[in-house]
């Protein structure tokens, strides 16, 4: 049971972490506002479905689309001028996370909100135990999203230009790849993945404006564990963290759920700083 929970959360972790990893791999920018985008997506889907009466299965993709647009806007106005200046991109995304967190507090209030489930009830899994349908659906959609991202990066023209830009920006632009466009789309996609994870998890664990930093932190631990910029690393890292956090929370202490993540982060930095699938040279 704890293991299953761990795997479900792990896959959603992976979706969220790939959003960070994609941006780091391509642009060498860490998006500290990742958790806030996730929280905003959760609130959007809550308000679209409950305040505006849009059916949940439409409200969810619509929220993700809004976050995608937000990501595009962020890249164009704030991140693009900082290219090549790692320090300012770190400062700007951190300040942005504080701004968005305060906007969320102001607009949505400090109370946890939970959008309606897409599906109700529970299913019997292999005759072993009952499991909530919402969790199963989130799990299936997450797997679908992961497969879609792998397809996008490995098999399409967009993916090819993304990989080209992340390997050698100058050379890629000489070959006719518009790297501004690639950056902007990747940032939007990274934001949309944060949004997707937020929408998927909000019906299970309600979102609050102050919960955003632990969301970001989880994604960062997964990215470092898997290796910066590695998509496969995100999936494996997400699963490992999801399982360890859930087992740890069940058998040791729930309050210290996030401490396991931090311990993993420190262990990775001590023994294998380039992560599971990262490149040794930075």
């Amino acid at each position, binding site marked *: 049971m704890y293991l299953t929970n761990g795997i479900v959360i792990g896959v959603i972790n992976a979706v969220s972490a790939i959003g960070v990893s994609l941006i*780091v791999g391509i642009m*060498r920018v*860490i998006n*500290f506002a990742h958790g806030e985008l996730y929280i905003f997506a959760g609130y959007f889907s809550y308000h679209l479905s409950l305040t505006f009466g849009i059916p949940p299965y439409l409200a969810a993709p619509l929220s993700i689309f809004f976050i995608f647009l937000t990501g595009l806007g962020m890249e164009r*106005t*704030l991140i693009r*001028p900082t290219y090549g200046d*790692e*320090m*300012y991109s*770190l*400062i*700007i995304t*951190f*300040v*942005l996370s*504080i*701004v968005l967190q*305060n*906007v969320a507090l*102001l607009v949505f209030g400090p109370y946890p909100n939970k959008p309606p489930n897409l599906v109700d009830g529970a299913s019997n899994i292999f005759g072993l135990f009952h499991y909530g349908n919402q969790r199963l659906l989130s799990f299936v959609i997450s797997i679908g999203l992961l497969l879609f991202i792998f397809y996008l990066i490995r098999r399409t023209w967009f993916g090819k230009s993304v990989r080209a830009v992340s390997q050698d920006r100058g050379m890629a632009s000489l070959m006719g790849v518009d790297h501004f466009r690639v950056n902007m789309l990747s940032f939007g996609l990274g934001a949309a993945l944060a949004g997707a994870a937020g929408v998927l998890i909000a019906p299970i664990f309600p979102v609050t404006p102050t919960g955003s*930093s*632990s969301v*970001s*932190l989880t994604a*960062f*631990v997964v990215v*470092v564990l898997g290796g*910066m910029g590695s998509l496969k690393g995100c999936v494996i890292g997400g699963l490992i963290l999801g399982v360890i956090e859930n087992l740890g929370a069940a058998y040791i202490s729930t*309050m*210290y759920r*996030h*401490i396991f*993540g*931090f311990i993993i*982060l*420190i262990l990775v*930095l*001590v023994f294998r*700083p380039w992560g599971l699938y990262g490149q040794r040279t*930075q």
Partner: protein
Amino acid sequence: MDIKKLWIPFLFIILAIFPPFLLSQYWLHVMIISLFYVMMASSWNLIAGFTGQISFAHAAFSGVGAYVSGMMAVYLGLPPWLGVLIGAGVAALLGLGLGYLCIRMGGIYLSLTTLGFSEILRIIITNEDKWTRGTMGLQIPGFFTEYSKASYYYVFLVIAILLLVVIYWIIHSEMGLTFRAVLNDELAASSSGINTIRVRALAFTISSAMAGLAGGLYGHYLMLITPDIPSLGQMFLVLAMAVIGGMGSFAGPIIGSFVLEILSEYIRIYGEYHLLLFGLVALAMARFAPEGVIGLLGKKWRIEWSH
């Protein structure tokens, strides 16, 4: 600093003697808090502005200083003066450890890990409420048996000036030269024989120790320590003061601290909007005027001089 320029800080120090005779208790309190932020923002600027590493654990280190010193005073009966020094030492050791682990991997790792460290510290302090009283806050003794804001003001003033002298000395010494060499071109610096990792780790340790010291003083002044001291909101305020005042300059964070702390007192009348407002200003500054207010003033003066 040549002798002719020495009159500027001298003048400020003379002026700084008077506030306890002129200001109300409330504004004296604001001045004391501003001096705390001067210590925080200037020491953060030492690593961020002069070696280019963004640490998000500066508020966390001040929390380490406040809680180490405060808990030693409460549970062991240690005098606050000693506790503050031990707190600064513990913060320095933690800074050394984190710095050593992350700095060889580059700036992004330091930022990620320090962010993680400050979240974890906040979670531990909040949850271990048997010892820390959690969000209720722990009552700790002050420095003086007889409470007086004026005495605290002078303590903060003297220590802030001491830290600023040390920071000034560092950035104008050979060490400062290596800091800037590492900031401008890491590869060139390392090929001219500078151990870039050691330089960065050293800067990080010194700055962490200063944060610990400032935090310890702050705790014993407020006499109530809460998990707000090591929070990311507090971290953001320190960062905004340095960014808005002007990172990489000596005077920038000092000006930023006073301006933002005094402004936040006025904004507080209308509600808790100061974080949002400072965030928007800091975003605009980082985007359009990365050298901060100091940079803008400097540019204006230079234009006027040339006419």
